[in-house]
Each structure stands twice: as structure tokens, then as C-alpha cells.
């Protein structure tokens, strides 16, 4: 199955603090381990919400809203797309990530509908 891991950015939406070189190295090591295990399909980091837009749909009407957005806890800062055998496997990998704060959401991607 595929799972999407979303890193919620917490309070950092306005002023992203660049990670320390040590943290970056640890993250890279972890990511490499995931790649070596054949788990990572795709990964990406997103710019803060101050640089983002929203499009709101209301019937035929579309409204474009400029960031930054207030509900900081729900904002996604980065994502991974993983190929795993179960949600439990994704959780086990995620627990090994070298982060000391933040929330990560794990969602299964719908595939092979009807099979």
C-alpha cells in the first residue's frame, strides 16, 4: 500500500527556522535508510503558508485567498509518499524519524479501486 506522511508545521509557518546542520545530517541519514529499504517513492518540503494560496469553491464562485493562514497546527510543511505493506509498518518507520517535535499524519492512498 501507499501512505502519505504529512508533516504538520506547527508554529513555523511565518518564519521557518533553518534546521541545524546536525539535524539535517540526521534527517538525511534517516531518509537514506528509507530509500535503501525501498520505502520512499517521493518526498518534498513545502514553502511556508505566507507564500501559499487557497482557492475556495462555492457553487460557481471561486475565491482566491492569500496566505499566511492562521490554523498553524493543520498546515502541511512537508510530505513523504511511502510504499509499505501495512499502516503498522509505516508507523514503525515513522517512529524512527529523528524529530523532537511536531505531528505527523499517516494516510493511506486509495489504489486499485474495486480490486
Amino acid at each position, binding site marked *: 500500500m501507499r501512505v502519505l506522511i504529512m508533516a504538520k508545521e506547527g508554529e513555523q509557518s511565518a518564519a521557518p527556522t533553518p534546521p541545524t546542520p546536525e539535524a539535517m545530517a540526521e534527517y538525511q541519514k534517516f531518509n537514506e535508510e528509507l530509500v535503501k529499504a*525501498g520505502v520512499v517513492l517521493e518526498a518534498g518540503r513545502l514553502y511556508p503558508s505566507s507564500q501559499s494560496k487557497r482557492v475556495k469553491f462555492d457553487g460557481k464562485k471561486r475565491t482566491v485567498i492569500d496566505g499566511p493562514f492562521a490554523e498553524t497546527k493543520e498546515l502541511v510543511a512537508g510530505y513523504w*509518499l511511502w*510504499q509499505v505493506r501495512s499502516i*503498522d*509498518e509505516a508507523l514503525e518507520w515513522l517512529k524512527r524519524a529523528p524529530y523532537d517535535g511536531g505531528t505527523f499524519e499517516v494516510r493511506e492512498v486509495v489504489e*486499485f479501486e474495486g480490486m
Partner: protein
Amino acid sequence: MRSSSSRACEGALAIGPRNSEAHRAIEAIWRIESARLIAGLARVVGDIGTAEELAQDALVAALEQWPAEGVPERPGAWLMGTAKHRAIDLVRRRKTLERKHVEIGRDVEQAQEGLDLDTAIEDEVGDDLLGLIFMACHPVLTKDARVALTLRVLGGLTTEEIARAFLVPVATIAQRIVRAKRTLAEAHVRFEVPGGAERAARLSSVLEVIYLIFNEGYSATAGKDWVRPALCEEALRLGRVLAELAPTEPEVHGLVALMEIQASRLGARVGPSGEPVLLLDQDRARWDRLLIRRGLAALERAERLGGALGPYALQAAIAACHARATTAAETDWPRIVALYDAVAQLAPSPVVELNRAVAVGMAFGPAAGLELVDALVAEPSLKSYHLLPAVRGDLLRKLGRSEEARAEFERGASLTDNLRERELLKRRAAECAAEGMTG
């Protein structure tokens, strides 16, 4: 005693309290860690059977302790530590035993090995995994045995899961694995990453096993489903792991590219009621762009390594021609013919000739394709291959020879064991019969 504990462990994984959080975590951890664990142990003890038993003993210990004490912070290290202690015990016991029988020279060798044991398990995880792959895919084993053993020790699948994937009784797979381990031991197959001239042949055996697993999922040879995506995913995972372990081998990237691009069509090649949809009839909007992108990148990696493309990279290049065409009509058939020419030179086979005939039919007209197919009709190895009459029927139909086409589709339908494929061919036959009446 050992084997009874491994049986207990498999039983525990298969029927244990599935809803317990610790148990589910252990199962997931086993999936992540088992290959590395078995690989590290196999290097020390020398054989897969013992290594797997040691690893499973550690798993049994985890199943006993973790639900009560909680999952340790570094579960992989815990499992390795536990298994390592048992490995040291085992090697010591073996040495004591051997001291009684064997001459002194051998004894010294063993003692030195014992000294290295502690560090031996921890370094070079990558090489260990590669060694395990080469061992599980050793040419001394039958193809079926290689496939089962690879899924078991590298994929971390239980015997039951492998049996389910291949639609055979559990006992058959269990026996296949036991026999494979025995064969490896009897043939004194060494745990190693082969080099030099041997490497190419051994690597090609590894690639063959991975592609066999993929194909069993991609076009299931038996049963009611035409595809079994789980097997494709296992094969892709093994391929991606191998690509990181052996990054300088162009054919590894070639195989990964081929599988990624073929897997990109998984969602499009099955219709709403489970029927097969052939490549040129597929809705290309349903192709998985991510897998196509990954496949093209892997192909580029193979090409960048230089030299002439191998058979897998060439087939990936053919798959890439389809992937790059936005519509079936835009397919670069002359290039595909040229690529098949290259495949036929490297790895000539009647099946490749048949595929080449299809491409020639598309590039230069059905009559040219039919001429090539007709030359294959007498080929003994294709005698019961359902795709030969299927291809021939297709070309005859395009030439307006509906009655002959119908007979070919009927023959193809009678030759396949896959229910879905048989239905498709019967439908084609019926269409030809209808065309024959109106034309």
C-alpha cells in the same frame, strides 16, 4: 528443538492476538528487520537455515517480552543483540563438537572466526544483504525454490503468505523452502558477494528471480485474477533495495525501470469487472505518472552507467516508448522494432520474436507482422503458448481474415489457464465471428 521454535513463531505471527498493539508492532518490525537480521547472522553461521532459525528465536523472545515490557527504543538492535547471543552460543557448541572430531588445523580457523564474531555482525549491513540475495537466488536451486526462499528471507513473508500469493498449498511452499535450505547446505554454497566473471551470471539469476515474482503478480498464470498487485509490490521493493545495494550494475536499474513502468499500468490494465485491458486499449490517463517518472529515471541511471544496454534495460526502453506516448497512435513503433532487434541479438528467444512481430505489424503493417508470426508457428517451445494464436488472430483480423482469426482466438482461449484472459480471447473470437457474418 530449533525448528519447533520457528514453527511456534510462525504460528504466533499468523494466529496470535492480531489486535494487540504490541503484536502488530512486532509484526511490522519483523518485516522491516528480518532480512538484515538473517543476513547478518548468515554471514556468521554460514547458512540461511540456521540464520533464519536464530532470527526467529529472537522474534519468539520479542513476542514473549515486548507485549508485557513494551517495545524497546531500538527494536532492530534488540533483535540483533538477542540473536547474536544465540549465534555465539551455537558457534561455541559447534566448536566443542568439532573439537571432538576434527583435526587441529580446522580448529584454529574456527577459533579465529569466533574472535571476529562480535564485530562481524554489525558492519557492512549492505554487503550482508547482498550476500543473502545472492545466496537465496543461487543457480543451484530451482526457480521455484529461489522465488520462495527470496520472498521468505528477503521479503519477510510467512510461508502462508507466499502460498496464498502463488495459490499453492502451504505445505508445498514449506517443503520447497526446507528443501532449498538443504540443497544450499549440501552444495556448500558460501555466503558471499561474488566478484569477477561469476558475478554477472549470479546477478542475472537474482534479476531473473525478482522479475519472476513481478510477472507472477503482473500476469498471474493461474487463478481468477489477472493481476495480483501485492506480488508486483514485493518485486518492486526487492528491485529498489537491490538498486541501492548494487548501484553500479546497469541491469539492476534496467530491471527496476522495466518494473516501475510496467507497474504504472496496473490500474489501467484491468477493467471494471476484473477483465484484462490490453496496452493499446488502456486509458492512459490512468497510468501512474509517479511510477513512470521513477521508471524513466531508473532507465536514465542504467544508461548513464555506460556500455551497451542489457536485456532488461532494452525492455525498459521499449516500455518507456509506450510510457512517453500520450496516445496509442503516437507510439514510436519503428523505435520499438529497433529495440526488439537489439533484444533479439542479446537474448534471442521465440517469445522475443513474437513481440518483435507485433511491433513490426504496428510499424510496417499487419502483413509484415504475420509473415514473422507464421515463421514461429512451428516453434516447439511456443506450441502451447496462448499468446501466439492471440497475436496471429489479431494480425489476421486486421487483414480482414475474420474466420481464420476466430479460430486462432478460440485456440488461444483453450491454451490459457487464466480465467480472465480466456474470457478476453473468447470475446475476440465472438467479435470475429460477427465480423465474418457482416463482411
